[in-house]
């Protein structure tokens, strides 16, 4: 297929086509968020030997829908002493930041909303917008817990972006491209060609595999921190900060935070899938390969990564704020530098 966006092929580049391209990921995000919430509820329940929601719909599958309806009905509170404009704006900014990243996610060989050359860079730049939303929400709430949560959150996001960036840079070095579609295409032909296993190449790549594998783990850990998930959920660490930066939010605005969190989880999972797990490529070479199968593989792989995030959440306790910085700056950063150097050396000598 020539184009990387089947909508352009079908409709042409007109207003209708643009609207469809914009709304497709949105529908996907909404549907995915419902499934992810259900998965979170069910997996947490199974790990704890419970059944989880069972009474809303068959086997409880309508529980997320019920929760969204509940949130929609709830009273929308704006604290009297808050900074109204910033307070009301923050949830939308966070959701925008999470959603804008979907513009470059290569869902399939034939569908990436915007096929730009600086895709990875764009994901990173856009990802920082949510930090702004968090600090806006936390500061504007005029609540001490929110303020502390926002402060922690921003310092955490900034510190963990560096190891994540090192991981991504290593892949950029290997693939010599920042276009996410290009990176995906480079990993075709079986799971041994994925960048988690050193990318395509002869058997001499074997000594770079530990480094790429380590980078995958480093990126995964950093992505947990970027999405404020356990064990890095101290911005909303409920045991000390009640609910962190969104303590004062209720109703639909809280739902926006909630959706943004799940959308962010998918974004980091999608980036991880694209750069390390082969993107939309089938793990078995040409078997089940193609545009439609591609989207199936891509969503499946991303969802498995999301399930990993959920699994970790219900296993580990959370870090303290200074330990979080320690892990970010003194463990992940040096290790990611080592891996980056090794990979660069490999590329140079190749």
């Amino acid at each position: 297929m020539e184009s990387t966006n089947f909508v352009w092929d079908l409709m042409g580049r007109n207003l209708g086509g643009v609207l469809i391209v914009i709304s497709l990921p949105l529908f996907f995000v909404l549907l995915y968020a419902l499934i992810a919430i259900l998965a979170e509820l069910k997996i947490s329940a199974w790990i704890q030997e419970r059944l989880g929601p069972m009474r809303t719909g068959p086997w409880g599958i309508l529980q997320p829908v019920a929760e969204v309806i509940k949130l929609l009905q709830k009273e929308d509170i704006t604290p009297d002493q808050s900074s109204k404009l910033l307070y009301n704006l923050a949830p939308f900014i966070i959701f925008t930041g999470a959603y804008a990243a979907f513009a470059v996610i290569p869902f399939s060989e034939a569908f990436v909303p915007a096929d730009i050359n600086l895709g990875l860079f764009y994901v990173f730049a856009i990802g920082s917008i949510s930090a702004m939303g968090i600090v806006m929400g936390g500061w504007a709430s005029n609540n001490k817990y929110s303020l502390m949560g926002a402060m922690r959150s921003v310092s955490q996001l900034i510190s963990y972006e560096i190891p994540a960036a090192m991981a991504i840079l290593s892949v950029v070095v290997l693939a010599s491209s920042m276009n996410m579609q290009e990176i995906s295409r480079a990993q075709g032909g079986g799971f041994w060609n994925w960048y988690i296993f050193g990318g395509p190449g002869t058997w001499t790549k074997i000594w770079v595999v530990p480094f790429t594998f380590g980078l995958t783990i480093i990126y995964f850990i950093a992505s947990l921190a970027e999405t404020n998930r356990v064990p890095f959920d101290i911005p909303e660490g409920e045991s000390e900060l009640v609910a962190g930066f969104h303590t004062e939010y209720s109703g639909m605005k809280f739902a926006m935070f909630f959706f943004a969190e799940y959308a962010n989880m998918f974004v980091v999972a999608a980036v991880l899938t694209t750069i390390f797990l082969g993107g939309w490529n089938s793990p078995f070479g040409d078997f089940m390969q193609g545009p439609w199968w591609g989207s199936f593989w891509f969503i499946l792989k991303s969802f498995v990564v999301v399930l990993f995030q959920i699994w970790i959440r219900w296993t580990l306790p959370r870090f303290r704020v200074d330990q979080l910085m320690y892990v970010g700056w003194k463990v992940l950063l040096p290790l990611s530098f080592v891996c980056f150097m090794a990979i660069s050396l490999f590329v140079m000598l190749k």
Partner: protein
Amino acid sequence: MSEKKRLDLEYSQLDSDRMRINVGPQHPSTHGVLRLEVEVDGEIVTEVVPHLGYLHRSFEKHCESMTYQQIIPYIDRMDYISAMNSEWPYVMALEKMLDIKVPEKVEYLRVIVAELNRIANHQIAVATFGLDAGAFTPFLFYFRDREFIIWILEKLSGARLLYNYFRVGGMAADIYNGFREDCLSVIEKVRKTNAEVMDLLIYNRIFIQRTANVGILTPDVAINYACSGPVLRGSGVAYDLRRNEPYSIYDRFDFDIPVGKGEVGVVGDCWNRNMVRMHEMEQSCRIIEQALEQMPMEGDVKANVPRRIKVPKSEVYMRAENPKGEVGFYVVGNGTDKPERLKARGASFVNLSVIPEISKGYMFADLILILGSIDIVLGEVDR
């Protein structure tokens, strides 16, 4: 400690304002309606002032207008997590005043229910401590197991939490068929879950990082503040009333007193306090096993006691080792069926007083963990 000193040094060079934060009475991890007024410098706690009394029910004054029998349900509501243990010293005090000798079977039954309740209490303590650290799963593992203990106690007494099971000179009801088997199966479950939680939570590196070297309570400070129970033993002082001043029949059992050994971190930190509870569960299992073996299964569970208890003019202080620490009842009788004065020593209340002392200079998140490691129950703090 070096970590703390380093942080102190770094933060002392910064010029910053202090912020007062109100933690509680509605806060997810104050374990009840406790209010802490915390002054923080950034993330560092500089001052903690506990404010009590949100659950004050005037227990002691109330008792003066109630008969001795009617007081027991109120004692249940003091430390509602380990109600069986709290009832015991009160009943022992009255038995001492009235000079009643309780049957052998009752003594064994009391030991068994008290130790079962001790396990249930420590399960909650460790579980909520893990929850404070952010680990949700061990919390539900423990609650799943605690249900079996509560099930035994419910079958015995008829209630799940507020048992009202002890009577002056006996127990309210006899044991049921299959009590022994139930206890043994529960012990097995407790041990299995403990082994699992050891791997899942206690020896998890993140958990160790969070709790070791945090909230260090040195033995002399612990003794000066009259701390008792796991809080004192976590500081390395092997003081347990069951051993040091054996009441009832505790001198017949073979058990160890676990103390904080500093296996991880230093003696007296949150990790060691928590570890003492883990070990105490095992020791309670041992006591129950021995008691079940020695216990006479036949016989009545009530001594000969008049229906309306009239206590002569006398006063008695009786204390016992509760899961949370030393609980004592000072009863003054005046010849009628109501006490002249009743004073309760709540273990949580005394242990809570050490919080401002040991939480200064740690981070705000540590304060919650220190509070969790003290294991308070607000019903007993405020009474």
